[in-house]
């Protein structure tokens, strides 16, 4: 089994509740160690602008490049659930080594600000996992944009999208994360792709008519209105 994350970018409001909840639960000081980080992508030109957030932690890759790169085998993948862990006593430290961070396509191995800091990263909240609870970030999200669980279960629920604005899938490492994008493809000023997952509103026959007519210009509009009344 491989534990995995799901991130619904169409829902994320960029509030950082996930990353702060992570810091509180795992007792991480403010500073460079960000087990979960939220970043914004701004695109387009005024007034056709687009903003998306992406909230990412270690994706507990199926083929973790960090573990391969570690010269002292301090990074271990749990054989039962695929969750990554680091043995800090073995870790050589960032100043002396830092190979894991360079190897990870997402720079997810994290280091504190102290000298020759030992590697730290998302543990999938393994203390919560033991109690059958989801990671702190997932339970924090005010708009339920995050989820976590066995990969097969997440795929069955959310589909198999593996890329999103702000995250490129690495075929080499196979990150264990699924997504729902905010926009179907990169929006351009000419065409904003409507969200295909958004269901059509349930309308009555009468309101359907009304919806249709607002798509036309003034003259069309007046015509339709007259017809109804």
């Amino acid at each position: 089994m491989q534990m995995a994350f799901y991130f619904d970018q169409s829902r994320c409001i960029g509030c950082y509740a996930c990353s702060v909840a992570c810091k509180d639960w795992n007792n991480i000081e403010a500073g460079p160690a960000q087990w979960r980080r939220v970043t914004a992508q701004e695109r387009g030109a005024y007034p056709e602008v687009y903003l998306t957030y992406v909230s990412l932690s270690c994706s507990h890759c199926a083929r973790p490049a960090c573990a391969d790169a570690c010269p002292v085998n301090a990074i271990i993948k749990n054989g039962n659930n695929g969750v990554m862990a680091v043995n800090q006593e073995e870790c050589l430290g960032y100043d002396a080594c830092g190979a894991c961070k360079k190897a990870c396509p997402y720079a997810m191995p994290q280091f504190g600000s102290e000298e020759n800091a030992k590697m730290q990263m998302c543990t999938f909240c393994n203390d919560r996992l033991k109690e059958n609870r989801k990671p702190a970030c997932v339970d924090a999200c005010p708009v339920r944009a995050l989820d976590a669980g066995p990969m097969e279960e997440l795929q069955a629920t959310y589909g198999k999208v593996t890329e999103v604005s702000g995250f490129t899938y690495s075929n080499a490492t196979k990150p264990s994360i699924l997504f729902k994008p905010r926009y179907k493809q990169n929006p351009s000023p000419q065409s904003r792709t409507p969200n295909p997952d958004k269901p059509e509103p349930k309308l009555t026959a009468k309101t359907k008519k009304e919806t249709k007519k607002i798509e036309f210009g003034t003259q069309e509009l007046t015509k339709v209105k007259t017809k109804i009344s």
Partner: protein
Amino acid sequence: MPDEKTVITTCTHDCGGRCLLKAHVKDGIITRIETDDGEEPQLRACARGRAYRQRIYSPERLKYPMKRTGERGEGKFERISWAEALDTVAGELKRIKNTYGNPAIFHVSYSGNTGTMLHSQLAVVRLLTMFGGFTPTWGSASFWGNLFASEMTYGTLTTGTTRDDLPNARLIIMWGWNPAESIQITTTSYFMTLAKEAGVKVVAIDPRFTDSAAAFASQWIPIRPGTDTAMLIAMAYVMIKENLQDQKFLDTYTIGFDQFKDYVMGKSDGVLKTPAWAADITGVPAGTIEQLAREYALTKPSKLLTLGAPGRTAFGEQFHRAAATLAAMTGNIGIYGGESAGFGLAPVGLQPLASAALLHGGKPGNLPEGTTPKKGVHITKVWDAILNGTKGGYPADFKMVYTTNGNPVNQFMNSNKAVRALKSLEFVVVHEQFMTPTARYADILLPVNTFFERNDIVRPWHAAPYYIYANKVIDSLYESKSDFDICAELAPRLGIEGYSDKTEDEWLRLAWKSAEHFTLTKPLAGYDELKQKGVQKISLKQPAVAFKEQVEDFKNHPFPTPSGKIEIYSQRLADMNNPKLTPMPTYIEPWEGTRDALAQKYPLQLISTHYKRRIHSQMDNIPWMRELEPQTVWISSADARQRSIQHGDLVKIFNDRGTVVLPAKVTERIMPGVVSIDQGAWFNPDKQGVDRGGCVNVLLKDEHSPAGAFCSNTSLVQIEKV
């Protein structure tokens, strides 16, 4: 963990939400803070609540009483005992009362704790009232234009719907509304998400492309600050011209539409309020105005959601009056999925305020006023009143300021004037948790505990259907005390008897009993049950919708206005006889707008926004919050290019009131001609008086609208590279 317990509480700050916090405690120390995982709708906390452990245990907490040793404002203090501190405060209060009279005591507190039943600035109000009176402030930095307009139009503030009604709309217009950052009720972003996913079209009208616009809206309409009323009136023009208004609704439930129509169609002033007229004022293309007018008129039900920002302008009440008028013209009042665009309290029963316990003895009623003037000094005029006193037309010559639950140097306009004002006084006492820009000006500084260190009962913002018992989690840290305990110890020193004959628990029992005076859909839990459970959620079968009775059975349920109808034309306003407070919604050209002569010198409109990183100025000093995003000034790429400003450059933002230095956020997400600074960063002037902290109030004009709105989005500035 066996030796660990969890305790339920909630943030009591003026943050726009009331979320459930679950504190893990081990050996008397809070180790973690979680949020709601119980019944839906869950009251999930934002980043601010989740970071609160760092605020409680901050090394910067004020630990013991202190007295000033250097010049006032220099920030030099020394530790003193509680006895010396309280004796000094009581001695100064008595001296000032005897020498100058009670009105010379100026109570300048604000909303650091709010929605609570016991702990708030009202502890000081009670004390000073029993001491014979004081001069209060009036107004609100948040919503006075909205409050005034709602009272004038609907005769009530209970005009809204519960948030579970959001998915029932077919169109939502977020007008100057950014709940992703300002929260605006704990569950708002969640229900906006559900609305979007149910196919509701969302339009955002805002000078900035906000997080909310990005997350919820499919259309962004940028607009010049302070001109929103012109766009609304032009939308009314389109509806009238094309006969799209709900005439039956207007005829049945409103008065004054014909007079408004005459104004819109130019009969009263010769100016047709066409989309082209508004386009010139607002910067919104005429076609966009026309299209939105049609869409709003013909898509039913629709919600026009307004709360504060466009009303925090020179004539902010006009915006809210115009928005309510459009809600009436489209017949979106009193129906599921609609919205009356008033103040927005949901009709789930008026919940008891802090005043329930402390001021009213557990019953609704009035505070005995002593010699307190009924209407004090508007919060925008506090500094001017201190500097000019009776010769400036203010109610007294002020000799001392008493501040708790507030950071007025930072959060009221014109911080440099605040410094001059506070330096002119005889005595300043501040209750605080941190060395804020206001605390620096205290003569006596008294350390206050946080809500984690005391009990309270808290009602949610904007009348959402639940209560939370804010349980005390740990004992008060260091020598800190609650405002209430400080005042209870001051009372005998001032010769006041009977300030409190009850324990905290007894006061709260009384306050909770007072909740029985208010109608709710389900019996309330007993006090002990509430305290133990921590939260009572009141399940509603249907969303609660204001004015449903009026619209369904108007004969027996008139609107609570003098005419019994929605007052598009208000006789009460006409009787005020103020040309700037017109009886019908009117666009009035603002001061410090783009057409002001001052725009030659200061061509950029400055807006002051809410930031996800802070609760106003609270938590600005908390490391977990500071690292999220930097304090910047937003400037459009077009305006930055003209000034050779690159993203990240240090720039100075200035006008005649002061100068602030900040890094520039050069972005496509703001309308050219507009710049924005998130309010609440701590004022930190250097030796030349240039603010290095990024406090927007250094730049804001200390003026209010005719009705009393706090005009924090009406100021002009210039920006240059440092």
